[in-house]
């Protein structure tokens, strides 16, 4: 259904003319400049820098998830597990082992990413709804582990007792106030976006898209599709874990909720809302999701109702997401 609409909108796909490429580069440069200047313009429109950090962190998680969801065609309901593992990895490292948030982020990303690398191959043994169920089941194991293992994780109260220390580089100390931290998040976001962009424009990325489009055809071209689904799962796990680590740093806190399937659902909503076939779709989705949550939750506790309404309307009227009808080919 969605596919038919997708192709109907792009009936006249043009060859990649040089003019288009430079326009795409221009668009990305403009986006980069807007993001770099966030601490300067955001307060003028009534926002605050931590809110922008939250948007980028959720966008990063949703972009990571979207490699699997939008570009490989794997619906995971369990990616919060890797987000939470990244968060607990960072929190525990800072609490017990180190004052270096870079080292803590590295460890958190590795913990979540390696977990996804090991568990992905189990999930990809099945397709469709069964794949989704396995990802939930695996994810919830970590949730209950975090709830039960009080002595390490702080149980349902969550993990506290760690904070962001300035980053000490040779000859340079970067303070980790709101603005300093925002730029750390932005660097992580930019690096991951570049990584994902590179992958999507490579044979590996083309293979992912082929699996989404028609895995049967790929099998009969001799491609072991499960292996590639597992690779997509792993890459997305690393990216989501990094986002989780950053989220723990933003709050100086993490709780079992960062492992729960409801958060996985939030990431899915963000990706679909923004446009899961579009490279920057999850960023657009995160802007809407976080802003609505921030502003509406100050008025009513039922902010999720508003999100739900926006989600239903967007699925009805923009089935390819907010960015969906701009340019289907921004990543391919």
């Amino acid at each position, binding site marked *: 259904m969605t596919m038919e609409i997708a192709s109907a909108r792009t009936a006249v796909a043009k060859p990649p003319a040089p003019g288009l490429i430079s326009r795409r580069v221009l668009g990305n440069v403009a986006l980069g400049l807007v993001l770099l200047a966030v601490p300067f313009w955001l307060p003028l429109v009534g926002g605050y820098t931590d809110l922008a950090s939250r948007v980028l962190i959720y966008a990063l998680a949703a972009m990571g998830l979207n490699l699997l969801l939008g570009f490989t065609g794997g619906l995971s309901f369990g990616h919060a597990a890797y987000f939470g593992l990244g968060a607990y990895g960072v929190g525990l490292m800072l609490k017990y082992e180190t004052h270096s948030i870079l080292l803590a982020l590295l460890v958190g990303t590795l913990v979540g990413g390696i977990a996804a690398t090991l568990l992905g191959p189990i999930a990809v043994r099945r397709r469709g709804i069964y794949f989704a169920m396995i990802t939930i089941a695996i994810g919830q194991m970590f949730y209950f582990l975090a709830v039960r293992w009080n002595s390490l994780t702080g149980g349902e109260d969550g993990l506290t007792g760690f904070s962001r220390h300035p980053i000490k580089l040779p000859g340079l100390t970067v303070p980790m106030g709101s603005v300093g931290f925002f730029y750390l998040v932005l660097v992580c976001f930019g690096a991951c976006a570049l990584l994902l962009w590179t992958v999507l424009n490579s044979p590996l990325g*083309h293979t992912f*898209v082929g699996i989404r489009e028609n895995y049967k*055809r790929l099998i009969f071209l*001799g491609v072991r599709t499960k292996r590639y689904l597992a690779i997509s799962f792993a890459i997305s796990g690393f990216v989501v874990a990094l986002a989780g680590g950053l989220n723990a740093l933003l709050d100086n806190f993490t709780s079992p909720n960062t492992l729960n399937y409801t958060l996985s659902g939030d990431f899915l909503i963000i990706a679909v809302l923004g446009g899961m076939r579009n490279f920057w779709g999850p960023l657009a989705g995160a802007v809407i999701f976080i802003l609505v949550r921030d502003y509406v939750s100050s008025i009513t506790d039922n902010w999720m109702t508003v999100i739900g309404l926006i989600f239903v309307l967007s699925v009805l009227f923009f089935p390819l997401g907010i960015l969906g009808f701009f340019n289907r080919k921004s990543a391919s």
Partner: protein
Amino acid sequence: MSFLVLDSVGRRFGALRALSDISLSVESGELRAIIGPNGAGKTTLFNLISGFFPPTEGNITFEGAPITAVNPTELVHRGIIRTFQITEIFLSLTVYENLRIAVETAMGLNLRPWISRAQRAAVAERIAELAAIVRIESKLHRVAGELSHGDQRVVEIGIVLAKSPKLLLLDEPTAGMGDEETRHMTDLIRRLNKEQHITMLFVEHDMAIVFGIADRITVLDNGKMLAEGNAAEIAANPRVQSAYLGDAGLGNAA
């Protein structure tokens, strides 16, 4: 030695005997048609040869090596590639992107998260080559799902050609096509066989095509082999006439 040999091959699904006692051999370079009424077992035969599922009886050998229990992925690497009754392509991608996935797969690049400029150029060159062989150059940047059914089948053949098949199995290549599309496809099949020297098996219902281009014809009926021979022999075979072609006879069909 024969290229592809089926020795007393059969396949059961529970109590149903879909195919039994099929023995045939295909020579290298041959263009072989498989015909038979609906339910005769033609697609089952394709599924057995392409490894979709294994036979329950008998043996299959390809280039002298047994392939009876070999999985489809491995068979592709050995050079056996198929198309399906329902066209299997990448519908929301352009023709160019469709061929690119196939070419990169054929070049063994799937795992590469980046490639050199030279490799990129080699991929593009091969895409252009394939597009020229199947004559889809003018539609390279159209979305595949927007093309006519006939063009989609042509794209599918372009995709499978990327793997340089030794044995190509085409399941009803002209089904549902108009006259012009059918002519284009028939011409393509003949050219692939003669110019690219690809051995082919094809299932086809259009007798004009079968008698027009096939070197040899195998007739299946009710899961059994009814006859085999060249066009003249099959046309003259009374069992084929009564069992398969019924009262219409070959006069009308051919």
